[in-house]
Each structure stands twice: as structure tokens, then as C-alpha cells.
């Protein structure tokens, strides 16, 4: 059995976290709060975009983020032979 490369596993995990949390921050604090007023001049059907991000869009993105993380980590666990049975 090959040695498990714990350092690399952790490094990759941190990289995923940084990317996903950046998206988390941008959709909520960015689009939903800081730039909401500017985005409100753009329309998405019946919604103004800033309002949509603040009351719906960010929540949808949160859900997607967790499932992307689950998928990435399950793959990473397998790759590094850290998968639980």
C-alpha cells in the first residue's frame, strides 16, 4: 500500500474551501448587499437583480455550493485513499 500524501490532500482541501467561500462571499455580501443598488438597474424578468440576489439567488447558490463541496471532497477522499467504507 502506498503512503497517503496527507499534506497534498489538505492543501487541495484548502484550495476548494478558498474558491467556494469566495463565491459564497461574492453572491451574498457582494451582489446581495454591497452592489445591490447598482445591480437593481439590471432586470431578471420580474426581479431587479440586486433584490433577487438578496432574497433568492444567494440562497440557491448556497445550496449549490454545499453540494459541489460534497462532490469534490468525495472525489478527493477516493483519490487519496481516505474514503470511508
Amino acid at each position, binding site marked *: 500500500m502506498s503512503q497517503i500524501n496527507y499534506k497534498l490532500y489538505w492543501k487541495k482541501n484548502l484550495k476548494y474551501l478558498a474558491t467556494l467561500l469566495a463565491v459564497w462571499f461574492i453572491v451574498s455580501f457582494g451582489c446581495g448587499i454591497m452592489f445591490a443598488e447598482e445591480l437593481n438597474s439590471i432586470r431578471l424578468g*420580474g426581479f431587479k437583480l440586486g433584490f433577487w440576489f438578496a432574497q433568492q439567488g444567494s440562497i440557491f447558490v448556497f445550496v449549490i455550493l454545499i453540494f459541489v463541496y460534497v462532490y469534490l471532497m468525495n472525489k478527493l477522499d477516493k483519490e487519496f485513499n481516505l474514503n470511508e467504507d
Partner: protein
Amino acid sequence: MTDNIWTYLMVGITFAIYLGIAIWSRAGSTKDFYVAGGGVSPLANGMATAADWMSAASFLSMAGLISFSGFIGSQYLMGWTGGYVLLALLLAPYLRKFGKFTVPDFIGERYYSQTARVIAVFCALFISFTYVVGQMKGVGVAFARFLEVKFEVGVGIGIVIVLFYTVLGGMKGITYTQVAQYCVLIFAYLVPAIFLSLFATGNPIPQLGLGGQVTDGAWLLDKLDTIHTDLGFKAYTSADVNTVDMFFVTAALMLGTAGLPHVIVRFFTVPRVKDARLSAGYALVFIAILYTTAPAISVFAKTNLISALQDKEYADVPQWFTNWEHTGLLGFEDKNNDGKIQYYNDKNPDMDAVAASNGWKGNELTIDQDIIVLANPEISQLPAWVIALVVAGGLAAALSTAAGLLLVISTSISHDLLKKWLKPNISEKKELLAARLAITVAVIVGGIAGINPPGFVAEVVAFAFGLAAASFFPAIVLGIFSTRVNKEGALAGMLVGIVFTATYILCFSVFKMGGPEDYWFGISPKGIGTLGMIFNLVVTLVVTYLTPAPPVKVQEMVESIRYPKGAGAAQEH
């Protein structure tokens, strides 16, 4: 009268289901009692977490709150969902791998300090207890309003029910009851929302209806914006708000969510690390169903309410208006004696001219925001069984949250205080007995406090979130992501975070020592936990690097929780 029969029937049936589940899932060991034996499937745990999370306030008050605050209400929507991303990515999997029973367990062992454990226990107790008081009050209100029993009797019924299934089943009983309670509450929330959406926009999906068109082809949200500006209110979707405060409040709610002990402990109940991750995802899906429906209800209800009442003859108002007038949630005072209802923002100077030309002499309608959810079925003339369903749903939301909190209280006392501190040699049987006694005392004290709540209950809930954000969140996250952070750093950081946050909230919220103009950077007490969290983080890191590294054994423990392999079951001690 027929309405009442439906209500008794719905509440009776749902309660019978909860009690049945409690008997079926009795707890035999402390492990059953604390973490449901560690064998709950991720899907069931996700549902239970969602029910645990969504309280009477989420169910009954949130849509109303957003309805009357418009865009800025988004801070609750984002704040109470975004924390789950932090939970899933930064906490849940690692705490599951750590594999003990409670949050103070982790703080105590990671920082190899009994003092840290005791601070954590008292924070957990304080946070959970303030929360329980609100839930018991919610149960009392729901019973009192719909079953026409006295408020005190309502709380009493609530105490007996919660006591029965928490004492019997512990975490195991609570978890499976919560699964049932989630189903009841989400069904009860969606049914009226679907009807409202259909009536307003012809689209049965409320999330889409919110962005839909009304009968004359205009967008619903544009119509509400126009109604608002015509009456002198700010446009509903306008993002022209105090961005700094909204930022801090949203962050405090997110960080607080991720630091609340009754939420974190749910992730100790699943079998594997990957189940903890997945379970957080399911939990957020189940929560998001309600949280994306709420803003739609806010808009449908507000539009309906104003269109139904504005400038209408008081003599012709529908029956529901009179019904809710009796409860004090709606109030009408004919200031200009024209027999019509005028609702507008009389504090807006721009409205003075409009009011003068129309002969209006001030706003005549007072609306309690709770009416948005409660009166919806009647305003939309839905059948009596839907009204009964909303009552059962509200009770399910209050009871499920109360049960989860009570469990944290009892675990903190029997496990963290007794077993881990005062009486380490206690037998499992005695520990289990202590846990059951602790729940009994907690629910009775919580009920009494719910009947006579201290005047500042609403502020105290902000306190719970602020404290969770400023104490637990940084201590846990740093404890996982840094091997270097030591006891001295964590203790100093937690103390600074707690003392700062508590002082700020006490000064501004409880003792009213200043108004919004005195807030630091315009941050309201609701958002101050974010600043407390930052202070905690900075102090922890500075003190850590001035003092020696933690023992090698602790560093190895931190390393080991980062890798999922061999997570095993929650360990016995």
C-alpha cells in the same frame, strides 16, 4: 365553530404522531441520548436539523418581518441560510471526525483546559436557554389564539408534550420526531403560499410567482413598489439602505448560525464524515424551501392587504378584518371621520400635500407584522382545514426547536458539567438520569420564563447569535485549521469576544444608553457579534504567537481530525 374542530383534529393527530414516535425510539444509553447512537442517515438528519433550526419565529414571524422591512429584510434570509455553507465547509466534517458528544467537549480537549470547557458550557447554556424561552412563549401564543385556552394553559400543554418525548427519547427521540415535524411544518407553510401565488400571478410555484406578472400584465414586484411609493413608503425592492449595518448583521447571523451548539451537535449524530457534509447540504435544501417561500409570501400578502383595505369603507370590510381586529393585530382609528380606511406613511413630509388634498388626517391602520402569516388563509378565503394546518405547523416549528435546545441544556449539565468536571466517576445510568432530570428542570423553568418573559426577550435572541459568533465560531474554526493556536490564545480571545459583545448589547439594547446615532460605525447591536468575532480572532492569534505552542498530543489530534479515514462512531470516554 367548525374551524375549531379542524384545529383540534389537526393538532391532535400531529401530536399523537409525535408521541408515537417518541415511544418507538426510546433511548437506552447515554450515546443514544446525546447523539442518537451516531447512526442517523444524512437525509433524516438533514430534515431534523431543518426542523430544529426553523423556530416559531421563522414560521410565524419571518415573512411578516420581511413584508414590513422590504429589501433590508434580506439580511435574515441570507444570514439564516448562509451560515450552513460555513458549517458544511469549516466545521461539520471535522467535528464529526473528532467524534465526541458536545461543543464544550471539543473546546475543552482542543485547548486542553478545564477553564475553556467551563466557559463553553456556560455560553452554551446561556444561548440555548434564551432561545427556549422564546419557543415556549410561541407555543403558548399559538395555543391561546387558536384553541381559545388561556396562555398559561397553552404553555403548560407545551411543557408536558416536550417533556414526554425529550425525556423518553433524548436525541434519538427528538431526531425522529423532528423528521415528522419538518413534514408537518413545511406542508403547512407551502399550501397557503401556493394558493396565494396562484391567485396573485397564476403560477403555482411561489418562488416563480414572486417574479411573475399580475392580471394587467405588470410585474408583481413593480406593482408593490408603486403601491409603496404612492403611499409615501420606500419602494419595496429599493436597496438604498445602511449597507454597513446590513453587512454586519448578515455576517453576525451567519457566523452565529455556524456557532450555535444545538445546530453543531446535529452533525455528531451521523455515522461518517462524508455523511456530515452531505447532511449539511440536505439541511440547507430543506431550510431553503421555506426561506425562499417566505419572501414570496411577504409580497403576496402585503399587496393583498393594502389593495383590500386602502381607501375602503370601514362598514364594508371583510369578516377576517373584524376577526383580527379583536386580537389586536389589526387596528383602525377613523381620524378624519370619513368612514374609510387610510393607510399611508404620515411621517413622510412629501405626503403632507397628498394627505391635505384628500382630507387625510394621519395613518388610520395599524398592522402587526405577525398577521402576514397568520391571517393569510383567511384573507385568501382558503378552507378551514388550511387554517388548522397553519396552527399545527406553527406548533411543530416551536416544539421541534425547543426540544433540540433542551437537549443541549441537559447534555451541558449532565455530560459537560457533571461527567467531565464535577463527578468524573459517575456511572452511565446515573449520567442518563441526570440528563433526564436536567431536561425536566430546564423545560419547567423555560416555560415559567415563557409565561413571564423579561421585557427584552427579542433583544436576547440577538444576544444569542452575537455570543455564538463571538465565542464559539472563531475558537472552533481556529482549533481545526491551525495546529499552533494554544490555550492561552483561545481563552483570551473568547473572553474578549464575549465581554465586548455582551457589553455592547447590554448598553444599547437592554439599558438603552444611546440611540442609533451612538452606534460604532452605525453597527446595530444585532450585528455587533461580527466585530466581536474579529476581535476574538485577532486577540487569539496575537496571544498565541507570544506563548508556547500546544502539546504535541494536541497537535496530533488536530492533524487527525482533518482526514476522514477511520472516523468511526462517536467514542465512549
